[in-house]
Protein backbone atom coordinates (compact mmCIF):
# COMPACT_ATOMS: atom_id res chain seq x y z
CA UNK A 1 0.00 0.00 0.00
CA UNK A 2 1.10 3.55 -0.72
CA UNK A 3 1.00 5.65 2.45
CA UNK A 4 1.17 9.35 3.13
CA UNK A 5 2.22 10.42 6.64
CA UNK A 6 1.39 13.72 8.33
CA UNK A 7 3.12 14.82 11.55
CA UNK A 8 1.46 17.70 13.38
CA UNK A 9 3.42 18.04 16.61
CA UNK A 10 7.03 18.83 17.42
CA UNK A 11 9.50 16.40 18.99
CA UNK A 12 9.66 15.51 22.70
CA UNK A 13 6.64 17.46 24.01
CA UNK A 14 4.32 15.11 22.16
CA UNK A 15 4.80 11.48 21.24
CA UNK A 16 3.26 12.06 17.79
CA UNK A 17 6.58 12.21 15.95
CA UNK A 18 7.85 9.07 17.71
CA UNK A 19 4.66 7.23 16.81
CA UNK A 20 4.86 8.43 13.22
CA UNK A 21 8.49 7.30 13.03
CA UNK A 22 7.75 3.83 14.41
CA UNK A 23 4.72 3.50 12.14
CA UNK A 24 6.70 4.55 9.08
CA UNK A 25 9.54 2.16 9.91
CA UNK A 26 7.11 -0.71 10.49
CA UNK A 27 5.23 0.03 7.28
CA UNK A 28 8.49 0.01 5.29
CA UNK A 29 9.50 -3.26 6.95
CA UNK A 30 6.20 -4.75 5.78
CA UNK A 31 6.96 -3.69 2.22
CA UNK A 32 4.63 -0.69 2.02
CA UNK A 33 5.61 2.43 0.11
CA UNK A 34 5.85 5.78 1.90
CA UNK A 35 4.83 8.40 -0.64
CA UNK A 36 5.79 11.34 1.57
CA UNK A 37 6.07 12.45 5.19
CA UNK A 38 4.64 15.94 5.62
CA UNK A 39 5.38 18.00 8.74
CA UNK A 40 2.88 20.69 9.68
CA UNK A 41 2.12 22.98 12.64
CA UNK A 42 4.85 22.50 15.30
CA UNK A 43 5.69 19.29 13.45
CA UNK A 44 8.21 21.30 11.40
CA UNK A 45 10.44 21.36 14.50
CA UNK A 46 11.18 17.71 13.76
CA UNK A 47 13.37 19.01 10.95
CA UNK A 48 15.77 21.29 12.84
CA UNK A 49 19.40 20.27 12.71
CA UNK A 50 20.09 22.37 15.81
CA UNK A 51 18.54 19.74 18.09
CA UNK A 52 20.99 18.38 20.67
CA UNK A 53 19.16 16.00 23.01
CA UNK A 54 21.03 14.26 25.87
CA UNK A 55 23.20 11.31 24.80
CA UNK A 56 21.03 8.76 26.61
CA UNK A 57 17.83 9.85 24.86
CA UNK A 58 16.63 9.16 21.33
CA UNK A 59 17.49 11.80 18.73
CA UNK A 60 14.13 12.31 17.03
CA UNK A 61 15.48 14.55 14.26
CA UNK A 62 18.51 12.44 13.43
CA UNK A 63 16.37 9.30 13.42
CA UNK A 64 14.12 10.78 10.71
CA UNK A 65 17.18 11.87 8.69
CA UNK A 66 18.68 8.38 8.87
CA UNK A 67 15.42 6.73 7.88
CA UNK A 68 15.16 9.14 4.93
CA UNK A 69 18.65 8.23 3.75
CA UNK A 70 18.05 4.53 4.14
CA UNK A 71 14.72 4.48 2.27
CA UNK A 72 14.94 7.63 0.10
CA UNK A 73 12.00 9.13 1.99
CA UNK A 74 10.57 12.49 0.99
CA UNK A 75 10.43 14.50 4.24
CA UNK A 76 8.68 17.82 3.65
CA UNK A 77 8.43 20.76 6.05
CA UNK A 78 5.53 23.12 5.31
CA UNK A 79 7.04 26.45 4.28
CA UNK A 80 4.42 28.66 5.94
CA UNK A 81 4.64 26.70 9.19
CA UNK A 82 8.46 26.64 8.95
CA UNK A 83 8.79 30.39 8.43
CA UNK A 84 6.70 31.07 11.55
CA UNK A 85 8.77 28.68 13.63
CA UNK A 86 12.34 29.45 12.59
CA UNK A 87 13.06 26.58 10.21
CA UNK A 88 15.36 28.00 7.54
CA UNK A 89 17.07 26.29 4.61
CA UNK A 90 19.85 27.80 2.49
CA UNK A 91 17.43 29.49 0.08
CA UNK A 92 15.31 30.92 2.89
CA UNK A 93 18.46 32.10 4.68
CA UNK A 94 19.45 34.11 1.60
CA UNK A 95 15.95 35.41 0.97
CA UNK A 96 15.40 36.63 4.51
CA UNK A 97 19.00 37.49 5.40
CA UNK A 98 19.21 35.13 8.35
CA UNK A 99 22.38 34.23 10.25
CA UNK A 100 22.19 30.53 9.49
CA UNK A 101 20.19 27.61 8.23
CA UNK A 102 19.00 24.63 10.19
CA UNK A 103 17.10 22.16 8.02
CA UNK A 104 18.38 18.67 8.85
CA UNK A 105 19.62 16.27 6.14
CA UNK A 106 16.85 14.48 4.30
CA UNK A 107 14.27 17.21 4.94
CA UNK A 108 13.17 19.85 2.44
CA UNK A 109 10.92 22.90 2.70
CA UNK A 110 7.96 23.08 0.36
CA UNK A 111 4.34 24.18 0.16
CA UNK A 112 1.04 22.85 1.45
CA UNK A 113 0.27 21.59 -2.05
CA UNK A 114 2.64 18.73 -1.23
CA UNK A 115 0.26 17.67 1.55
CA UNK A 116 -2.80 17.76 -0.69
CA UNK A 117 -0.89 15.86 -3.36
CA UNK A 118 0.00 13.19 -0.77
CA UNK A 119 -3.70 12.92 0.09
CA UNK A 120 -4.57 12.43 -3.57
CA UNK A 121 -1.74 10.07 -4.53
CA UNK A 122 -1.50 7.85 -1.44
CA UNK A 123 -3.93 5.03 -0.72
CA UNK A 124 -4.11 6.22 2.88
CA UNK A 125 -3.06 9.42 4.59
CA UNK A 126 -2.16 8.66 8.20
CA UNK A 127 -2.13 11.64 10.57
CA UNK A 128 -0.13 11.86 13.80
CA UNK A 129 -0.73 14.61 16.33
CA UNK A 130 -3.27 15.79 18.86
Amino acid at each position, binding site marked *: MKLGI*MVNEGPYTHQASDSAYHFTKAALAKGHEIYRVFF*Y*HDGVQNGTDFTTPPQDDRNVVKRWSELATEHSLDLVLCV*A*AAQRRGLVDVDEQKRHGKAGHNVAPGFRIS*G*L*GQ*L*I*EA*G*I*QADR*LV*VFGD
Partner: protein
Amino acid sequence: MSEAGTTKKFLYVNRRAPYGTIYAWESLEVVLIGAAFEQDVSLLFMDDGVYQLVKGMDTKGIGMKNFTPTYAALGDYEVNKIYVDRDALAERGLSLDDLQHLVWEDENEDWAEKDSIHLVGRDEIGNLLEEQDVIFNF
Protein backbone atom coordinates in the same frame (compact mmCIF):
# COMPACT_ATOMS: atom_id res chain seq x y z
CA MET B 1 -5.00 20.97 -11.60
CA SER B 2 -6.48 17.70 -10.32
CA GLU B 3 -3.78 15.04 -10.43
CA ALA B 4 -4.30 12.71 -13.36
CA GLY B 5 -8.04 13.29 -13.08
CA THR B 6 -8.20 11.85 -9.57
CA THR B 7 -10.92 13.38 -7.44
CA LYS B 8 -11.13 12.40 -3.82
CA LYS B 9 -13.40 13.40 -1.00
CA PHE B 10 -11.48 15.58 1.44
CA LEU B 11 -12.92 16.49 4.83
CA TYR B 12 -11.38 19.08 7.11
CA VAL B 13 -12.52 18.56 10.70
CA ASN B 14 -12.14 21.65 12.88
CA ARG B 15 -12.46 20.96 16.58
CA ARG B 16 -10.68 23.80 18.34
CA ALA B 17 -11.52 27.39 19.26
CA PRO B 18 -10.26 29.99 16.75
CA TYR B 19 -7.69 31.45 19.15
CA GLY B 20 -5.64 29.90 21.93
CA THR B 21 -3.88 27.65 19.44
CA ILE B 22 -2.95 28.09 15.78
CA TYR B 23 -4.78 25.00 14.55
CA ALA B 24 -7.87 26.83 13.26
CA TRP B 25 -5.84 29.29 11.20
CA GLU B 26 -3.40 26.71 9.86
CA SER B 27 -6.36 24.49 8.97
CA LEU B 28 -7.86 27.30 6.93
CA GLU B 29 -4.51 27.76 5.17
CA VAL B 30 -4.62 24.13 4.04
CA VAL B 31 -8.21 24.55 2.84
CA LEU B 32 -7.28 27.61 0.77
CA ILE B 33 -4.25 25.95 -0.84
CA GLY B 34 -6.12 22.67 -1.28
CA ALA B 35 -8.92 24.44 -3.16
CA ALA B 36 -6.59 24.76 -6.18
CA PHE B 37 -6.53 20.97 -6.53
CA GLU B 38 -10.21 20.72 -7.47
CA GLN B 39 -11.07 17.96 -5.07
CA ASP B 40 -14.46 17.26 -3.45
CA VAL B 41 -14.01 19.31 -0.29
CA SER B 42 -16.15 19.53 2.85
CA LEU B 43 -15.53 21.25 6.16
CA LEU B 44 -16.89 20.09 9.49
CA PHE B 45 -16.97 22.23 12.60
CA MET B 46 -17.55 20.40 15.87
CA ASP B 47 -16.66 20.68 19.57
CA ASP B 48 -15.13 24.15 20.26
CA GLY B 49 -14.50 24.39 16.51
CA VAL B 50 -17.99 25.86 16.12
CA TYR B 51 -16.62 29.07 17.69
CA GLN B 52 -14.49 29.57 14.56
CA LEU B 53 -17.56 30.63 12.58
CA VAL B 54 -19.04 33.03 15.14
CA LYS B 55 -19.62 36.43 13.52
CA GLY B 56 -18.42 39.83 14.70
CA MET B 57 -15.17 38.79 16.33
CA ASP B 58 -12.82 41.46 17.66
CA THR B 59 -9.27 40.29 18.39
CA LYS B 60 -7.75 43.67 19.33
CA GLY B 61 -7.57 42.65 22.97
CA ILE B 62 -5.29 39.69 22.28
CA GLY B 63 -3.12 41.46 19.70
CA MET B 64 -3.71 38.90 16.98
CA LYS B 65 -4.94 39.27 13.45
CA ASN B 66 -8.62 38.38 13.09
CA PHE B 67 -8.51 35.75 10.37
CA THR B 68 -12.18 34.78 10.57
CA PRO B 69 -13.39 37.10 7.75
CA THR B 70 -11.48 34.70 5.47
CA TYR B 71 -14.23 32.11 5.93
CA ALA B 72 -16.51 34.37 3.88
CA ALA B 73 -14.18 33.88 0.89
CA LEU B 74 -14.52 30.10 0.89
CA GLY B 75 -17.53 30.25 -1.45
CA ASP B 76 -15.33 31.92 -4.09
CA TYR B 77 -12.93 28.98 -3.78
CA GLU B 78 -15.82 26.57 -4.46
CA VAL B 79 -15.66 25.37 -0.89
CA ASN B 80 -19.37 25.33 -0.18
CA LYS B 81 -20.12 22.27 1.92
CA ILE B 82 -19.68 23.49 5.45
CA TYR B 83 -21.17 21.25 8.11
CA VAL B 84 -21.69 22.40 11.68
CA ASP B 85 -22.48 20.08 14.58
CA ARG B 86 -25.90 21.27 15.70
CA ASP B 87 -25.51 19.82 19.20
CA ALA B 88 -22.07 21.41 19.68
CA LEU B 89 -23.64 24.79 18.90
CA ALA B 90 -26.52 24.22 21.33
CA GLU B 91 -24.18 23.02 24.09
CA ARG B 92 -22.36 26.36 23.84
CA GLY B 93 -25.54 28.46 23.85
CA LEU B 94 -25.11 29.28 20.15
CA SER B 95 -27.42 29.04 17.18
CA LEU B 96 -27.10 29.47 13.41
CA ASP B 97 -27.85 33.19 13.83
CA ASP B 98 -24.62 33.62 15.80
CA LEU B 99 -22.53 32.37 12.88
CA GLN B 100 -21.30 34.19 9.80
CA HIS B 101 -23.70 33.90 6.89
CA LEU B 102 -21.53 31.97 4.46
CA VAL B 103 -22.77 31.69 0.88
CA TRP B 104 -21.67 30.55 -2.55
CA GLU B 105 -22.93 31.27 -6.05
CA ASP B 106 -24.24 28.34 -8.07
CA GLU B 107 -23.11 28.77 -11.68
CA ASN B 108 -25.58 26.09 -12.77
CA GLU B 109 -28.49 28.16 -11.51
CA ASP B 110 -27.62 31.59 -12.90
CA TRP B 111 -25.24 32.28 -10.01
CA ALA B 112 -28.01 31.98 -7.44
CA GLU B 113 -26.69 32.65 -3.94
CA LYS B 114 -26.93 29.61 -1.70
CA ASP B 115 -26.12 28.91 1.93
CA SER B 116 -22.88 27.03 2.53
CA ILE B 117 -23.55 26.11 6.16
CA HIS B 118 -25.56 23.01 6.95
CA LEU B 119 -26.38 22.07 10.53
CA VAL B 120 -26.00 18.34 11.06
CA GLY B 121 -26.76 15.89 13.84
CA ARG B 122 -24.18 13.51 15.23
CA ASP B 123 -25.62 10.52 13.37
CA GLU B 124 -25.13 12.45 10.13
CA ILE B 125 -21.55 13.29 11.13
CA GLY B 126 -20.84 9.58 11.39
CA ASN B 127 -22.05 9.10 7.82
CA LEU B 128 -20.09 12.13 6.65
CA LEU B 129 -16.85 10.71 8.06
CA GLU B 130 -17.62 7.30 6.62
CA GLU B 131 -17.82 8.54 3.03
CA GLN B 132 -14.48 10.43 2.97
CA ASP B 133 -11.21 9.41 1.31
CA VAL B 134 -8.99 11.84 3.24
CA ILE B 135 -9.70 13.38 6.63
CA PHE B 136 -7.66 16.20 8.13
CA ASN B 137 -8.30 16.72 11.80
CA PHE B 138 -7.34 20.09 13.24
